[in-house]
């Protein structure tokens, strides 16, 4: 077990390294002078030179990369050009809303998608299945802002049930925290729900055709037990894998959702940074999020042993 864990952890290093190279090259390989772009249209030649020096763009490429990598390894993600503050600090300030929204969305989606997928597979081909699948493909296609503004107009503006936008910290007011999360969670969650419902249905469909399901029924077990204990547990590996890879989709949606609901999270930080050409912030956000993505998928990989005893390392 442990040798595998170590191997698996080490295997993430090249991926993170590649991410670092990609992020590094983004700025350097872009057409035009990045320093000029960052400085903006009204910048003087001196401003551009200053920015170039600040970013180290005047040095040889390899030296730049090694310097930058060295900083990263020391946990120094650089400084915001616009705010002159460490990027990591900026990210830390904005992490709570994004984390809260992502986690609540995952919980919402998983709670909704798995019963949907199981039910659809259980009654494959029936009207229940067809309805669930039609709803899924619809949910997968509707843009976040259509659902978001629809909910805002329907529930907040007309009925005044929930706050229209914004975010309240959990430590500040837990009730307001939850109330502010409801609409963004639903708006963002539907896409992820659709994705998970589809994979759940597909794997359950396969599992329910297995001989051991017939055995379970022949033992006189009730259908819920057959489906959940015998079916879902066997189907769990692909579902959990999709929860992990779907994170990329989820994070993309978070950026849009934060914008729709004016949530001051990392997505908003990114957009602000892009509009201000605050390149170190953009780099830092991408690196941080890629790191989280790789980490989550690593944990999921390692969890397979718990889900399926046949997987041994």
């Amino acid at each position, binding site marked *: 077990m442990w040798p595998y864990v170590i191997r698996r952890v080490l295997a993430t290093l090249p991926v993170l390294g590649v991410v670092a190279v990609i992020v590094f090259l983004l700025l350097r390989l872009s057409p035009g002078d990045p320093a000029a772009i960052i400085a903006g249209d009204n910048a003087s030649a001196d401003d551009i030179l200053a920015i170039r020096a600040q970013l180290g763009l005047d040095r040889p490429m390899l030296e730049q990369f090694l310097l930058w990598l060295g900083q990263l390894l020391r946990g120094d993600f650089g400084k915001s050009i616009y705010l002159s503050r460490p990027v990591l600090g900026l990210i830390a300030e904005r992490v709570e809303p994004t984390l809260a929204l992502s986690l609540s969305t995952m919980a919402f989606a998983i709670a909704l998608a798995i019963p949907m997928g199981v039910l659809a597979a259980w009654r494959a081909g029936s009207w229940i299945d067809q309805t669930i699948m039609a709803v899924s493909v619809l949910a997968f296609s509707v843009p976040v802002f259509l659902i978001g503004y629809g909910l805002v107009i329907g529930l907040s503006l007309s009925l005044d049930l929930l706050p229209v936008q914004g975010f309240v910290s959990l430590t500040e007011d837990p009730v307001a925290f939850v109330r502010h999360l409801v609409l963004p969670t639903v708006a963002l969650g539907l896409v992820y729900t659709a994705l998970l419902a589809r994979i759940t249905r597909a794997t359950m469909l396969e599992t329910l055709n297995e001989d*051991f399901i017939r055995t379970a029924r*022949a033992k*006189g*077990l009730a259908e819920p037990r057959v489906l959940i204990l015998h079916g879902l547990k066997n189907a769990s590996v692909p579902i959990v894998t999709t929860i992990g890879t779907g994170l990329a989709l989820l994070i993309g949606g978070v950026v849009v959702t934060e914008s729709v609901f004016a949530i001051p999270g990392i997505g908003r930080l990114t957009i602000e940074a892009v509009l201000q050409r605050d390149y170190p912030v953009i780099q830092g956000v991408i690196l941080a999020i890629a790191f989280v993505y790789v980490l989550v998928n690593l944990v999921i990989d390692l969890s397979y042993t718990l889900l399926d*005893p*046949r997987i041994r390392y």
Partner: protein
Amino acid sequence: MTGLAVSQPVLVVEGLRTEFATGEGHPMVAVDGLSLYVRRGETLCIVGESGCGKSLTALSILRLLPRPYGRIGAGRVLLDGQDLVQVTEAEMRAVRGRAISMIFQEPMSSLNPVITIGRQIAETVMVHEGLDWADCMDRALAMLRQVRIPEPERRLQEYPHQLSGGMRQRVTIAMALACRPRLLLADEPTTALDVTIQAQILDLIRDLQAKTGTAVVLITHDLGVVAEMAERVLVMYAGTKVEEAGVEELFDNPTHPYTRGLMAAMPHLGGAGGGRRRLHEIEGVVPSLMARPAGCAFAPRCELATERCRREAPPLVGIGGTHSVACWVTAGEGVLA
């Protein structure tokens, strides 16, 4: 065994008709008008080539036909007089695994790979007898001992992939017998196993049957298994019963041309090792259930077939004792072979 127990069958199937919806109007008939019975402590073997409907007969008895296409079109399945075709799904669940158990052909795939052996046996007990979990696990342990699995305490905590094929089939038997069923349906229980293991498993089933008095319906295509296990034999062809007799009568006096074909394909019966061979040496193939011939289903492959055989399906007629056969040609000729 008391006279009453002998005369009263545990299971009686009358005129069972199993159909599959095809989406093209009329359904496909997989089992057609099948009747059978089995008494306490008795073993009935159902023999036939694959696709003849023998497995579907067992699944029909348990009402486990594949959804949503399979269904029982007609007939009665009487378990101690209660018609299982008519009971509710909840009542049926109480029958499955408790009054009637089933073991399947593939011990590799019929156990759940992600649940320990102990839990898989114990959950049957828990569902049917509502005991404490600890008591259920005790029963599971006792069952593993009964099916002679070495180191049962350790096996309890293991997963199916950690066991050999023979051991797994012992586990499925332990699971099937955990609630002391009145009837055990065994669908090709030894087909997937090595020859030496086959004999052990058959011995085990026979031993446990003697101890518990359970009735056994054993489905097989292997006449060696039939000779070893059966008291009575039912030969199926293309969804219908073509011949039924006591085991000795059948081997001494096979009457239906199909049964004779099966026997002929098995050269040294009773010789060393049982001389088991697959039943595919008869010329031709089983007709598709979609394109069943008008007359006798076996007629296209039958050397003795007459015009009448092709036109009209033969009824099942008694030819002495409990021996009955469905054939226009050989039913009348008496004991000749």
